[in-house]
């Protein structure tokens, strides 16, 4: 059974589409990996898989082993002997930026199985159910610290099948819970409330709420505009008595990193979390696009934010 050696299974949910489930999943995965954990990402959004694009591995194909699939590697573990974690906390942060050790990261998505990236997957429920089950049982994850599951919007077939299968196959200690993503505006909040009720009904623990797209800092005049208003996530978290993990602003540099693979650079004097951001002069394209996604992500302004969030999550989940 493929989930046997997975220590924690973490769902990323949202009732609303386009709030950044996949982008939060990506960043959680990268941050966990940077903290030295081995991570798997499973994309169960069957009709609109985005994970391959986010990790820049769109052309990769899944290999098949007898009776199962081998997930697509984003990167292997690096540094201090690979498997850093016998179940202990991270010590990766004492190492310097460029040679810091990190854990392996693997992905599985329906996107890897399609012949053509523009192909539509027009499936009704039963077929999606079968696919979700297969994803949960037939992928060789090997030994993982965390398995993140990115979901489509809504509370329908994929979600029911996912939770059903997980409740059946994973032990309660494995199924750590769900991170719920929302944007601040009321429209999104009202859908996300439904998702929290879904978690309640199915007995999935809500580990916390992430408010995404909270504010946009104009790169020209550094005026912060709340494009999608503000504070809604925190109010909702309080209302439902679930932890609020934090607000994530819109960072055009993160989008650029995903879309073009360029290392984020910020205007002179940008200081986030007491740390000056990467503003240095290697502005030619080659230098910016060089390197692995995980290395480039460390210069993103959102990384310190997620670092804190992930630490809190890891603590909540225990070992």
């Amino acid at each position, binding site marked *: 059974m493929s989930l046997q050696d997975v220590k924690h299974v973490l769902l990323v949910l949202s009732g609303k589409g386009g709030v950044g489930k996949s982008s939060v999943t990506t960043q959680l995965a990268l941050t966990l990996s940077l903290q030295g954990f081995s991570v798997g990402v499973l994309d169960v959004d069957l009709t609109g898989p985005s994970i391959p694009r986010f990790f820049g591995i769109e052309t990769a194909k899944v290999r098949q082993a007898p009776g199962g699939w081998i997930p697509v590697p984003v990167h292997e573990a690096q540094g201090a002997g690979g498997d850093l974690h016998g179940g202990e906390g991270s010590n990766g942060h004492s190492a310097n930026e460029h040679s810091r050790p990190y854990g392996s990261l693997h992905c599985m998505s329906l996107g890897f199985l399609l012949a053509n990236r523009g192909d*539509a997957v027009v499936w009704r429920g039963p077929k999606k159910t079968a696919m979700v089950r297969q994803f949960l049982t037939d992928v060789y994850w090997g030994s993982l610290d965390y398995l993140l599951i990115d979901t489509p919007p809504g509370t329908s077939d994929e979600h029911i099948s996912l939770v059903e299968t997980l409740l059946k196959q994973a032990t309660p200690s494995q199924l750590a819970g769900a991170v719920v993503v929302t944007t601040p505006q009321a429209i999104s909040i009202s859908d996300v409330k439904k998702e929290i009720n879904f978690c309640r009904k199915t007995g999935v623990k809500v580990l916390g709420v992430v408010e995404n797209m909270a504010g946009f800092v104009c790169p020209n005049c550094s005026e912060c505009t709340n494009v999608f208003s503000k504070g809604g996530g925190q109010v909702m978290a309080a209302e439902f008595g679930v932890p609020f993990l934090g607000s994530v602003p819109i960072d055009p540099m993160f989008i650029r990193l995903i879309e073009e693979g360029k290392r984020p650079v910020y205007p002179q004097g940008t200081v986030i979390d007491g740390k000056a951001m990467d503003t240095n002069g290697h502005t030619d394209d080659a230098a910016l696009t060089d390197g692995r996604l995980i290395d480039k992500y460390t210069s993103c302004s959102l990384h310190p934010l997620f670092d804190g969030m992930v630490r809190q999550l890891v603590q909540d989940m225990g070992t």
Partner: protein
Amino acid sequence: MAPSLEEPIEPVDDALTSNLKQKPALVAPEPEHCPGPESNDAGKSDACAGCPNQAICASAPKGPDPDIPVMTQRLAGIKRKLLVLSGKGGVGKSTFTTMLAHAFASNPANTVGIMDTDICGPSIPKMMGVENETIHVTSTGWEPVWVSENLATMSVQFMLPNRDDAVIWRGPKKNGLIKQFLKDVEWGELDYLVVDTPPGTSDEHLSVNSYLKESGVDGAVLVTTPQEVALLDVRKEIDFCRKAGIRILGLVENMSGFVCPKCTHTSEIFRATTGGGMRLARESGIPFLGAVPLDSRIGMACDYGESFFDNFPDSPTCKALRDVVINVGEQLGVDAVDILGDE
């Protein structure tokens, strides 16, 4: 009718041993090869050999859904039916649907209906400011909720006992509700019916399409945002429309560019690194209906259920929207004057 997880589901356990697993080349099976459980060939065509559902399909009643003529008759009074689609979530399908409906309804001579087929995440009622309404059942059918004199809406939200209740339904149940929306709702004489859809290409989309086929869909408006992550999914939706034989009226690019309210500097929050909606439209040979910039006031107007159109008629976003609406009208063969009224 509290939905619950314990609901019995169709026997799909053996679907795991479908051809997907045995195929040596790891390419997902193409669903269009399935003749469809309701077709005359169900369980008999070549593609059915070895399908675990073969016995079920072969023994199921054949022929078109007996309810389709009922629906067609119910919808006979509707002049034009539009779908608003997008493969991606959160690109503004519902927002655009409400804008389109408000624009059509701005001409008092038009009567407009909105049908919200997003069962698990209905947004239309909130955006229309009618979140707390309920449906009245009369002897002739369900009465839709009227937002104004000439603007009616129908959504699953009106049927929920609590506002935040989750609708945890699998496909068949969702299809059943959509069917009821088309069969039992007393739409009456409408000039436009705008159908808002959930993201993806699944049950809701297939059902809406197959139920409306008989009465005729005038076309679909696709909504996207400029970044490639969204275009990727919209491409799939175009593929879906082609396969399903739905006419694409065109593509709208939403959230393209954001004007800083302080320094009026335009930033592309969602950068069109691959040419955005315009290029996608050109590549796939569909009309490009226009680009609508991001405006935080739209979000605000939606949160409070007010019409952005009526409240900020002079904003650049509103002008862009008006152009899009006129382009939609053009594709439908309707004069701008007929849509927006004389202004």
